[in-house]
């Protein structure tokens, strides 16, 4: 199973401040453990939202809103993609992450082909494929 682990931003990350050497060292050590266990597929930090943008869709017209975003709760500062045998294993790994101070890290399972399982019947799959083909033709 694949999981995305979302790390929220804070005032420091939004100000573009790099974490202290101590925190960086701990994080590097943790990342190494994840890699050596064959768990980490990807992991990236994100620039502050001042460098980002939002595009709002309403009544058929997209509107661009430049960063920074003020809703601190909605800000993502980094993410990992993990491959684990179970949700419990992912939680067990997350518990070992070097965070503190009330930080809440979000763990989400990534949809995979098999997850559609019985709901995606052969007929539905075929319909989906037909749709894909049509889209491809139009492009």
């Amino acid at each position, binding site marked *: 199973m694949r999981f995305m682990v979302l790390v929220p931003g804070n005032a420091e990350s939004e100000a573009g401040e790099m974490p202290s050497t101590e925190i960086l060292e701990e994080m590097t050590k943790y990342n*190494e453990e994840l890699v*050596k266990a*064959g768990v980490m597929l990807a992991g990236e930090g994100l620039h502050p939202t001042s460098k980002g943008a939002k595009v709002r869709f309403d009544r058929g017209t997209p509107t661009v809103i430049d960063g920074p975003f003020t809703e601190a709760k909605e800000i993502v500062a980094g993410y990992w*993609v993990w*491959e684990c045998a*179970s949700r*419990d294993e992912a939680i*067990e790994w997350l518990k070992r992450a070097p965070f503190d101070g009330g930080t809440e890290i979000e763990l989400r399972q990534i949809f995979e082909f098999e997850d559609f399982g019985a709901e995606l019947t052969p007929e539905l799959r075929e319909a989906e*494929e037909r749709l*894909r083909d049509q889209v491809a033709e139009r492009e």
Partner: protein
Amino acid sequence: MPATATDRAIEAVWRIESARLVAGLTRVVRDVAVAEDLAQDALVVALEQWPRSGIPENPGAWLMTTAKRRGIDELRRRAMAQRKQELIGRELEILQQLDQPDLAAQVDDVPDDVLRLVFMTCHPVLSQDARVALTLRLLGGLSTPEIARAFLISEGTVAQRIVRAKRTLSEAQVPFEVPGRDELAQRLSAVLEVIYLVFNEGYAATAGEHWTRPALCRDALRLGRILAGLMPSEPEVHGLLALMELQASRLRARVGPNGEPVLLGDQDRARWDHLLVQRGLAALRRAERLSRALGPYTLQAAIAGCHARAASVEEADWPRIVALYDGLAALTGSPVVELNRAVAVTMAFGPEAGLALVDGLADDPALRGYHLLPSVRADLLVRLGRTAEARDEFVRAADLCANDRERELLLSRAVACGA
């Protein structure tokens, strides 16, 4: 009985910690069977205590300390039952080693233990089947029933294989070490072979009703990723990982809506797993950077890389693929590689050139009974418009094929060739 949240958490901890635990204990007690028993004992204690006490802050160290204590208790009990001088020397030795106070700390400080365990479970003194079972059990953290399900064999067979393998390792007194320079290349190739064998059984199941078994591919990938972390300067470790990541990237495009195989040319490339493609190409770059002469896994990964970069089968760099197969054929001398090379030659230089090569392989004893020989030949005959001959070859290939799904595909292709 449904497992409680704590049970499932313990299982997760076990999956994370068991390889390190067994490896650390093996270094101390010098016997992988004793080490695994001690680790299992610790797991039983955890299953009893953790539901009440909660999961300890450092579960790995807790398991190690508990395993050590159980080991000491067990040997003391035996020492009481017998007279101490009758305690065999081996057990006394284990007892002394277990009595070291700073065992948990010691184990934490030895990162190469897991690597030593890899070389032990893939040791040439064991049969191929035994290496696979023991590696999945001790390094993959798979249970006996899980291994049995994966390979479609009975639990009894797996259990027996593992017990025998551990006994063989003890009797042969296989040392717990990373092989020295002189034999490293050969021993490493045995390790890579075990991992790739597991992967292949998942990627193209040799038997059974399913064409692929993705869970086995994931187990092999995990082992490959672990090994790449343990031996970052070995080019072929990255080569094998690159090969597996690239092949696995196509897994979900490789099976049609009704479970039938979908061949490379017919795959919807939008369905490929592009995260794995990127990981595969990155591992390939590392392998190429580290090697002077490309090894067999890196060469195969480079071929897979040519396909991964192309927008379609036709657009792949076929002359380069032929050149890579030349290198691979020179290294392995394998007629299966020659057969693949013939396909590449066909794509680069036309079906006549390919067919000449395939016909040259027809009498190779190693390919007798190999269904892909008539299957490839049939393909070439179709391209040359010789459909009647092609149909016979497809039927011959179907007769030789043990996988139900693949056989259906071959028969349908025979039918497509007309009566």
